[in-house]
C-alpha cells in the first residue's frame, strides 16, 4: 500500500499498462521527455523508451485521428489532451469516428483508445483552462465517459478504461490532482495523505465502469456528484450537519442507475451537483432520469447546483464555482420542500 496523490496514481497505472502490454502507446503534447504539464507521464519515456511515450505536434485533431488509426490497427493508444478546453478541434474525430467506427463497420474495425484530459477550474485558469465539457461527450453514443474523484478510483478506473475495447473519455479533475478540495479557496491546500482514498494498493485492480461509489450514507437527501464537486458536497453536508447520502458517479456513461434509484427511493429527495455550465449539462440528464425512475418516491423537485451559463471567468472564478454555500442552500431548499 502506498500513499499517492492522483497524479502518482495515474502515472503508476500508465507505467503498469506500458509494462504489461506492448500495444499500449502514450502520446500527446509535452507528455514525452518532459512528462506532461501536470507530470502524469513523468519518467515514462525514460523507463519505457521513446516509442512508448512520445510528444506530438500541437494538433488535437491530429492526435485523436492518429490514435484512431493506431487503435484500428490493433494498438491501444492512451492519449493526453493537455486541457479539455483544447479538445474541440478533435471533436469530429471523437464524435464521428472513434464513437461510431464499431457500429458503422459492424465490428470490422474498432477504436479501443483512451483519451485522458484534465477538467474543471479552481486554478485561476480562466475560460481556457477550466472547462468541464463532459456533457458534450455523454451525449454521444459509442464512447464511455469516466471521471474519478480520488487516487484510489483513478487507478482502478484507468486500468479498466485502457483495457476496454470501446473508446473512453477519462476526465481528470485537475483541482483534485494534489489533494481533495472542499471548494474553499482560502483554506490551505489539503493533500491526499490525510485521506483514506489516497491509499493506493500496490497490486493492480480494476473498477468496473458503471459502478458508483457511495461516499457517505444518509437518509434525508441524495446528492449526485462527480469529480471535484464530490468533495465540495461532502464538506457542505458535514458543516451543515445534513443527513445526506452522497453518490460519486465515477462513470457517467455507463451510469449506475441502480445505485441512484435505490438511494433516491430511500431518501425521497435529490440534488444534482456539477461544475460545468448548467443548461444541457449532465445534471439535466440526471434530473430527468431521477424523475423517470423515482417520481413516486420524490417528495420535492430535484434541484441542480452547477456552474453558471457563462464562460469560466478568471478574476471572478469563485463567483462562478458552485461552492459549499450554493450546495448547502440547495440542500436546505429541497429538504424544506413539503
Amino acid at each position, binding site marked *: 500500500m502506498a500513499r499517492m496523490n492522483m497524479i502518482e496514481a495515474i502515472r503508476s497505472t500508465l507505467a503498469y499498462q506500458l509494462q504489461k502490454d506492448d500495444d499500449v502507446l502514450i502520446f500527446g503534447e509535452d507528455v514525452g521527455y518532459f512528462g506532461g504539464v501536470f507530470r502524469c507521464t513523468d519518467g515514462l519515456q525514460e523507463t519505457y523508451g521513446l516509442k512508448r511515450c512520445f510528444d*506530438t*505536434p500541437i494538433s488535437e485533431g491530429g492526435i485523436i*485521428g492518429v490514435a484512431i488509426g493506431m487503435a*484500428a490497427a490493433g494498438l491501444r493508444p492512451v492519449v493526453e489532451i493537455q486541457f479539455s478546453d483544447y479538445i474541440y478541434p478533435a471533436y469530429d474525430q471523437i464524435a464521428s469516428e472513434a464513437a461510431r467506427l464499431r457500429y458503422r463497420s*459492424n465490428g470490422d474495425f474498432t477504436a479501443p483508445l483512451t483519451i485522458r484530459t484534465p477538467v474543471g477550474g479552481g486554478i485561476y485558469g480562466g475560460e481556457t483552462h477550466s472547462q468541464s465539457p463532459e456533457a458534450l461527450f455523454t451525449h454521444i453514443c*459509442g464512447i464511455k465517459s469516466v471521471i474519478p474523484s480520488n487516487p484510489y478510483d483513478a487507478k482502478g478506473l484507468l486500468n479498466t478504461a485502457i483495457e476496454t*475495447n470501446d473508446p473512453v473519455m477519462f476526465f481528470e479533475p485537475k483541482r483534485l490532482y494534489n489533494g481533495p478540495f472542499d471548494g474553499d479557496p482560502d483554506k490551505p491546500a489539503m493533500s491526499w495523505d490525510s485521506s483514506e482514498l489516497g491509499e493506493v494498493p500496490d497490486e493492480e485492480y480494476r473498477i468496473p465502469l458503471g459502478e458508483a461509489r457511495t461516499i457517505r450514507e444518509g437518509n434525508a437527501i441524495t446528492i449526485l456528484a462527480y469529480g471535484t464537486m464530490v468533495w465540495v458536497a461532502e464538506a457542505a453536508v458535514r458543516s451543515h450537519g445534513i443527513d445526506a447520502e452522497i453518490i460519486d458517479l465515477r462513470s457517467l456513461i455507463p451510469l449506475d442507475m441502480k445505485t441512484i434509484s435505490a438511494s433516491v427511493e430511500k431518501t425521497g429527495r435529490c440534488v444534482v451537483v456539477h461544475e460545468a455550465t448548467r443548461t444541457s449539462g449532465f445534471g439535466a440528464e440526471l434530473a430527468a432520469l431521477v424523475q423517470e425512475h423515482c417520481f413516486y418516491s420524490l417528495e420535492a423537485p430535484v434541484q441542480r447546483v452547477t456552474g453558471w451559463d457563462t464562460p469560466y471567468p478568471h478574476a471572478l472564478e469563485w463567483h462562478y464555482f458552485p461552492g459549499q454555500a450554493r450546495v448547502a442552500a440547495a440542500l436546505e431548499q429541497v429538504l424544506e420542500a413539503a
Partner: protein
Amino acid sequence: MTKDESDTNSDLYIPEPLHRPGDTPDFSHIHVRRNDNLEQPDVLVDSYETERHAGGLIRVMDMQGVASGPWLPQVTPDILRKGLRAMLLTRLMDDRMFAMQRQGKLSFYLKSRGEEAVSVAQTLAIRKTDMVFPTYRQQGVLIARDYPMKRMMCQCLSNAGDSSLGRQMPTMYSSREYGFFSISGNLGTQFIQSVGWAMASAYKRRDDLAMAYIGDGSTAEGDFHYALNFASTYRAPVVLNIVNNQWAISSFQGIAGGQSKTFASRGLGYGLASLRVDGNDFLAVYAVTRWAAERARRGGGATVIEHYTYRAEGHSSSDDPSKYRPNEEASAWPYGDPIERLKQHLIVIGEWDDARHNALVDDLSTYVRDTYKEAEALGSIAAGTGIDPKTMFEGVYEHMTPTLDEQARVSGVGTWRE
C-alpha cells in the same frame, strides 16, 4: 463607396471556374505533353528534389496509347489486362447501380466514372496486406482486389447480404479482410487515421503500408493538414493521395485553393516527397504508386500524390451537374478517358484488340447483371431489407448496455435480458 470612387486597390476576390453552363469548354491553355521531362528519381531522394514533380505532370502514355519516358513502369500485359478488366467492371457496376437507384431500388449511389485508373492502378501497384483508407469514390479498390461484387451490391441495397447490417448509406463499404477501411461520410477524417495506421505498422516493424485518399475539395479540411504534418514528423509509411477531379459537388477546385499552386505542392511544405500525375494514365498512376510504396517500405516516409483527373459525371445520384458546369466539359477534358487510353495502349503493344475488348465488355455486363439479380433477391430498401430491427441496438458498444437494452424493449424489438 464603390471601387471606382475610391483610391484603393482592395477588392474581394472570389474565384470562378473556367466554364459555366452555356459556355463552350476550352482547355486549350492546358498543354498536354507526354511528360515534363520529369525524371524518375531514386526512391530515397530528399523531398525537395520532387519540387518539379509536384508542379508538373508525370505522364507515361501519349493520347495515342504510346508509352515512353523515365516513368515507364515494368508491368506485364497480364497486369494491364487485369487493370482494364477491373476498370471496366467498376464502370459497369456503377452504371448498373445508378440505373437501379433511378428505379428506386437504392436510396443513393455514387459513381467514379473517369477516375477508375486511380483506384485500380494504385491497388495493383501495392500489396493486398496494405490498408487502404478510401473515400466513397474508390470502389475500384475493392474490385481490383476481387472483393465479391455481390457483397458490394448488397451493401448498396442495404439488404440481408450487407455485412454492415444496412447501417451505412450505399457505397460506404468496409472490409478489414480486403484491406479497405470503413468509409466515413465525414470528409477527410480517414486521411489522418491512415497515418496512425501506418505508424502502428512501423511500430510493429511490419512491412505493410497505409494508402489514403482525399478529394480536391476535402483538402481544405484540417485532417488533410494534420495528416501531412504527422506523416512528416513520424516518417510514417503511408501514401497520401489527392484525387483532383476538378469538382467538389458544385465547387470547382479553385475554391479549395487549387488555383495558385498545385495540390501536390502542398506536400513539399511539410517536407514530403510530392508527385503530380495524369490520373487518367494508368501506367503513370501505377508507376508513381510503385515509387511511393517503395519509398515508404524502405523507410523514406510518406509521399503525397495528386491525381489530376476529371469527375466525368455528377457528384452522386442526388446531383445535377448541368446546373453548374457545361455538359460537354467531361468530353472536352484533354486527358481523355482512362479506360479508352489503357485499351489503346494494349492494342498498340499488340496485347489486345477490339474483338477481345467487346467480348470482355459483354462478358462483364452479363456478370454484373446476373450478380445484381442475385443481390436484389436478398432484398432492398424498396422491397424490404430483411434486416432484423434488433440489430439497430447492437454494436454501439462492445457489449449491450442496460440503457440500450431498455430502449430496445420500449421500441418493441426485444431485449437481451434473460
